[in-house]
């Protein structure tokens, strides 16, 4: 907006940058989105009429490694932001790549897990567990994938020199999104994988 066009800084009534406020609003709506999917999972948790059931399929150690990868990716994301806020484009690029790579590892782990479950006979149509699990974690994985695309786009744009210290907000916004997706995974991992109904309760 042209209210303070000359300085290049926008004065907003709240003092918050428009795009940062937008990102926070978007993330809060995503809370409702994932909340509804998680609620569906929890509501149907003990209701599958036939197997396979979670305790037969889950490989907690494997998924823990995946979760850890995503957690570390949040650290590298923070480092990327810190780098560009100091004006260090090179370091930012490295950390962005690292974040994207870890994200990619996570998604690959998910894909592998899905294939394993599929081989054991779990599909969308098998039972309620299959339906709710694949839809919930699938949407989460899609969000991570979109995040990876955003990170790689930032990386590509920075190769043209178009991300400098003054543009750090772009990286910060990507970081907000990335951390959110990570937090959602922590919630999913806890509620879906770690806190299970007792074996054979179905």
């Amino acid at each position, binding site marked *: *907006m*042209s*209210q303070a*066009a000359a300085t*290049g*800084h*926008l004065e*907003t*009534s*709240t003092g*918050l*940058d*428009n*795009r940062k*406020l*937008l990102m926070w*609003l*978007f993330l*809060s*709506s*995503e809370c*409702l*989105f994932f909340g*509804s*999917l998680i609620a*569906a999972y929890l*509501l*149907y948790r003990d*209701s*599958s*009429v*036939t197997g396979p059931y979670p305790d037969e399929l889950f490989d907690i150690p494997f998924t823990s490694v995946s979760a850890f990868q995503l957690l570390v990716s949040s650290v590298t994301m923070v480092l990327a932001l810190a780098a560009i806020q100091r004006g260090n484009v090179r370091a930012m690029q490295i950390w962005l790549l690292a974040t994207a790579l870890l994200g990619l590892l996570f998604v690959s782990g998910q894909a592998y897990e899905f294939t394993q479950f599929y081989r054991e006979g779990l599909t*969308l*149509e098998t*039972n*309620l567990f*299959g*339906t*709710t699990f694949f*839809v919930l974690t699938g*949407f989460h994985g899609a969000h991570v994938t979109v995040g990876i695309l955003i990170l790689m*786009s930032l990386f590509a*744009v920075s190769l043209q020199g178009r991300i400098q210290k003054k*543009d750090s907000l772009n990286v910060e916004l990507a970081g907000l999104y990335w951390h959110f997706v990570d937090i959602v995974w922590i919630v999913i991992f806890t509620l879906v994988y770690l806190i299970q109904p007792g074996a054979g309760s179905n």
Partner: protein
Amino acid sequence: MATEWPQPRKQGLADALGWARRMADQHYGIWSWIATVDHKRIGIMYGVTAFLFFLAGGMEALIIRLQLAVPDGNIVNADQYNRILTMHGTTMVFLVIMPLSAAFFNLMIPLMIGARDVAFPRLNAFSYWVFLGGGIFMNASFFTGDVFSGELGAPDCGWFCYSTLSSKAFSPGHGVDFWALGLQILGIASLASGFNFVVTILNLRAPGMTLFRMPLFVWMTLVTSFLLIFAMPVIAVALFELLFDRLFDANFFNPDKGGNPLLWQHMFWLFGHPEVYILILPAMGIVSEILPTFSRKPLFGYPFVVFSGIAIGFMSWGVWVHHMYTTGLGTAANAAFGISTILIGVPTGVKVFNWMATMWGGSISLKAPMMFAVGFVAMFTIGGLSGVTHSVVPSDYQQQDTYYIVAHFHYVLFGGSIFALFAGIYYWLPKFTGRLLNDTVGQIQFWLMLIGFNLTFFPMHMSGMLGMPRRISTYSGDQGWDLWNLLSTIGAFTIAAAILIFIINVIYSLRRGQAAGHDPWDGRTLEWTIPSPPPHYNFERIPTVHARDPFWHEKYTEDAAGRPIPVIAGAANGHGEENGDHGGHGIHMPSPSYFPLIAALGFPIIATGLIYDYALVAVGAALLFVGIYGWALEPVTEEEEGHA
């Protein structure tokens, strides 16, 4: 007068289409509209499109009323009837009231807060194009059956499409897919709009305009936008679940695999109840602007009307089960939600009292905007009161799914929202066209519409109490429902006549209407300080605001005895005509862009692909990506920092 037209962006994919680029930069012509990011133009497009859908939904209503005018009607068969009634409801809620409200958000919010545009002009354009695509996509379903033998492909499950009727087993055609995918697309438009207006209202207010100096319409828009942000994701998930069940054999609502069809109802109404407040709060905001202006008094109890709106926003999340009393959720749940539903009537009642107190002691001008606004208060009160009778759980068991419910929601949505939206059109359209609508014709339209509306919907209280269920394609003549249905049909055609008169009024006034000038109504708020139509940059100088109703305070002050008197001319801040608008040199406005449209096109194509051919999904996705990448990478120049 010389103006600074928007400068083209220097680089970007769109420059490959050099010719299209040059066309977008013109101020006239269809290309300039296609690439516009100007909130005023987007508002006009929303309004015109929504009005066309209103005519479509109205035709659907007339067919319904023709079918039900007499017992054992056979204008349409039961299958056609179910499709038409589904599209009538879906159209009116999602393609008429919501976008008409969006039209007013677009047209009015920046002007009322003293801004040059919304926070994210391209996102704004994107919302409109997505809405248009979704509306066309959904209506295209009519033509997917064998139309010439009377087979319509439209959805037929009712506007809230309960499970398990919505499953592939019981609705094997594509109608429900069109419904679910269409709503999904529309949801994206609404969500984007919600984000945009929250940021705009919170961040782009003119200096001195604190939250409690904002016009009430702005407050209601803020609450509505928050409701959109939180409610749309819930329906999005419900629709995804329905689509996964239908397209990929998931089990969300499949009782054979342990799924619960009631989950759909819970999710739909968890969205659906905030949705009905999304439908009414903007209307309440419009009326809260018109009543003070035409009574020449400020809105009585402004802070309380604001708090009531906020309270309604919060409470709307706690009443959804009142749509499900008869589904067997148990006495405790029904009792709890019965109480919460009774209580949500209170803030609405507070608003009604405040509106009446606004009029009390005023100097009331009965021009068309005021007639519609007062009509809103009168009709909405009736609808609200019948709503209170619904909240009584045991009697709701008699009312549920009868025409008594149909009467209630038409009183609040037509007698409420639609009347208020017409009030807004008569009030604010002159600001954008520069011409007043003919007031006498407006009065005739008002009375015809009021009489027609009551003749249509009041008898439905009777037929409902006499047990007539909703959504039946015919009824037999031995039930005692005949007279009421006939009256309703006569009323419906009366409404149609009123709408016809409105259309004539608009067409006539666009050419020959009286010039509006910048302040035809002796208004109170900032939009009346600028010329009609406004220059594309809105305000030559962003005003500094010192009070609520800032324009009123510039025009009128109080004498020693506390009586309001006009401010002596010359002492007022120059606005528009007095100091002359100098053409806005040096004001940089956001450049037009094609990318919102390109991205928006992706959605209906993806949706069509999901129904017919997955290759189309790839095509739509590609368009979406190109659109988004182009949009994101359009260069950030100094004056455009912070735009999206």
